[in-house]
């Protein structure tokens, strides 16, 4: 009997047993391994690998079943929303609903059969075999040097492996011919630490990865220089170590499992809110790849949610326009860094860091104070000199209209501002960054020299009001500043007035 025939027979018998009310035993005799069998097995696996699975084993079978059924219901609702937006065809939506019906059956069946199980030893062994210690997991996952994994683990446990390495390098006791050699060794080690850190995920993990990447770049800078390394650079390194540690607040070194699905679905964020639904509808109405629009939609959901949470935490009173601008800017920053990462090995910053930067950018545009730093302040003994000699002077402004009005939207106008500045920066690399309302993401230009002239192109989009006469954004200004490599403001605040674009007919 072929597998296909066996499955078909099984499915027929299953349909009979389900409709006739014959119990579990009859179904088991059918030995069906069609869709339902697969889904039953899948839900068993999910239960096995869920955290706290043991606690649920016998005492919480019904509770677990109900939670899973509620999640299926959530997914069915998602199908309806996707279909409504045109992101799912009617035919696919029907098939998805049918599948979720079968998944609900599978969950109910599994719960029935689970009551007959007296021992969950297999489940426990599965859990034990998924992963063991932090060290083992990271070592196996990344293939990094075990010493580097130890270094990373120490970092996450609140130890100071980097500070210790720097101490050893600068106070080795004996005069050495090349004081930079220990930093070349440290650079090689940090390359491996960076590799190991690839296993870290979530916002905290990405924050650590970004800090490790910065440590490596600072160390490379030292290794490539000559003579004794400057104290301020060494201090920056130890600050980065503290920042990485602050991001995770001492991670435990024992891993527990986290199944990527089931319980992770956020019911509250799924329900959404009116503003997200409006923006979501606008994104859905755009042309472009479905994956891209869905991704933007997910990011906007996060951004709007996070801005409101942040505003609540920080006691900020924001207008809807500000919230929109912050969300839009955060998504724009994420897109920009993804583009940069595609062409380099740049480590991405976590979305919540980008969001804070976006919030600060919009607050600054409105002349408001930025959010307080999240990272701990530098140690008391650190002697940080404020940057001096920051100069940014507007030399020239040329405006090029690129789509005014927009072919599709007569009330929208696109144009480029080609701005030339003279500048002096106390640190390199630095960036010239221009921000402003209706400007997302920020326009940036890397600066490699301490002084000179540079030109930046700022692409802008403005909107006319409904009367068609006055450009509602004609009072907009573009704010240009000098930033250091990590995005901190060095100074040189210049406001460039936007031109009044040709008005809509």
């Amino acid at each position: 009997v072929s597998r296909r025939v066996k499955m078909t027979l099984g499915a027929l018998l299953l349909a009979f047993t389900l409709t006739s009310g014959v119990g579990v035993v009859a179904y088991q005799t059918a030995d069906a391994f069609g869709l339902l069998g697969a889904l039953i097995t899948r839900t068993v696996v999910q239960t096995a690998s869920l955290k706290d699975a043991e606690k649920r084993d016998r005492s919480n079978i019904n509770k677990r079943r109900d939670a899973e059924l509620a999640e299926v219901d959530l997914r069915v609702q998602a199908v309806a929303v996707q279909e409504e937006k045109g992101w799912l065809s009617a035919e696919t939506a029907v098939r998805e609903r049918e599948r979720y019906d079968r998944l609900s059956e599978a969950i109910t069946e599994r719960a029935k059969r689970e009551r007959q199980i007296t021992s969950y030893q297999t489940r426990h062994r599965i859990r034990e075999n998924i992963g063991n210690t932090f060290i083992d997991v990271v070592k196996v996952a990344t293939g990094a040097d075990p010493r580097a994994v130890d270094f990373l683990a120490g970092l996450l446990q609140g130890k100071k492996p980097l500070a210790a390495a720097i101490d050893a390098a600068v106070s080795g006791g004996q005069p050495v011919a090349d004081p930079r050699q220990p930093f070349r060794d440290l650079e090689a080690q940090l390359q491996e630490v960076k590799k190991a850190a690839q296993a870290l995920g979530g916002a905290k993990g990405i924050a650590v990865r970004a800090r490790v990447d910065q440590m490596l770049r600072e160390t490379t800078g030292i290794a490539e220089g000559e003579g004794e390394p400057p104290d301020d650079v060494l201090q920056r390194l130890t600050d980065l170590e503290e920042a990485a540690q602050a991001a995770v607040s001492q991670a435990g070194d024992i891993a527990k499992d986290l199944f990527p699905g089931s319980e992770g679905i956020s019911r509250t964020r799924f329900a959404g809110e009116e503003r997200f639904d409006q923006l979501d509808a606008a994104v859905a109405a755009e042309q472009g790849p479905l994956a891209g629009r869905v991704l933007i939609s997910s990011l906007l959901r996060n951004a709007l949610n996070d801005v409101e949470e942040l505003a609540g935490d920080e006691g900020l009173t924001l207008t809807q326009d500000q919230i929109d601008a912050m969300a839009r800017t955060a998504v724009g920053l994420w897109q920009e860094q993804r583009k940069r990462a595609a062409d380099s090995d740049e480590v991405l910053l976590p979305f919540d860091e980008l969001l804070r930067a976006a919030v600060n950018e919009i607050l600054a545009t409105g002349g408001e104070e930025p959010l307080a730093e999240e990272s701990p302040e530098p140690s008391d003994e650190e002697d940080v000199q404020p940057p001096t000699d920051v100069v940014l002077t507007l030399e020239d402004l040329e405006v090029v209209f690129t789509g005014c009005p927009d072919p599709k939207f007569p009330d929208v106008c696109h144009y480029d501002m080609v701005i030339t500045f003279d500048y002096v920066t106390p640190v390199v690399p630095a960036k010239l960054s221009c921000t402003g309302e209706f400007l997302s993401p920020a326009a940036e230009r890397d600066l490699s020299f301490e002084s000179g002239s540079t030109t930046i192109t700022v692409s802008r989009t403005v909107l006319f009001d409904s009367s068609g006469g006055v450009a509602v954004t004609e009072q907009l200004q573009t704010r240009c500043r000098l930033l250091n490599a990590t995005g901190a403001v060095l100074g040189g605040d210049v406001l460039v007035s936007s031109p009044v674009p040709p008005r809509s007919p």
Partner: protein
Amino acid sequence: VVLVAVVVLGGGGGEDGRGGPAAPSADDRVIASELVASLPPVSGETDREQMRSLAGPPDAFTVSLETYDDGTTVRREEWFYYDLRSVYEFADGALVSNLPLDASDQLILLPVQYDPDDFQLGVPWETVSATLPDAASFSSYQLEEAYGVDATYYVGEQLLLVFDEDGLLFYLEAVPLETGEEGS
């Protein structure tokens, strides 16, 4: 129930309150237009490939082969992105759902050694194991008889593989881990 869900989740419908999405405002169109225009370069034929080109490989994933009553099969995949707090589900490469994830307050250890592209379904353990870095470290178990499904698991190193009664791979999970006290 579905209609109610559409209205509730779709933002309450049009301005007349009688359902149907309201037309996006001009301001919202500008925002959406800018963001879509600023997407990183997209490559690939399917939604799945395009998502990968935009967001990179997933942090964790499940892959399953589902056989429907009419004999057709579908490769379903769930891709989890923890920083983006989103999960995307694909059926034969077509995007069928996007759901938000709760943020984890723990450090997550990702199964970065695995890639969904590396797994072919419908093949025996011998074929899969040849592609694993350390297949010998995996343990195999049989699903308890009471479940009534003849399935075999192979488990190890953040990977869980499930084979059907014919010994063919039909489901797998690349499992992320959280740091913290075990059992807490």
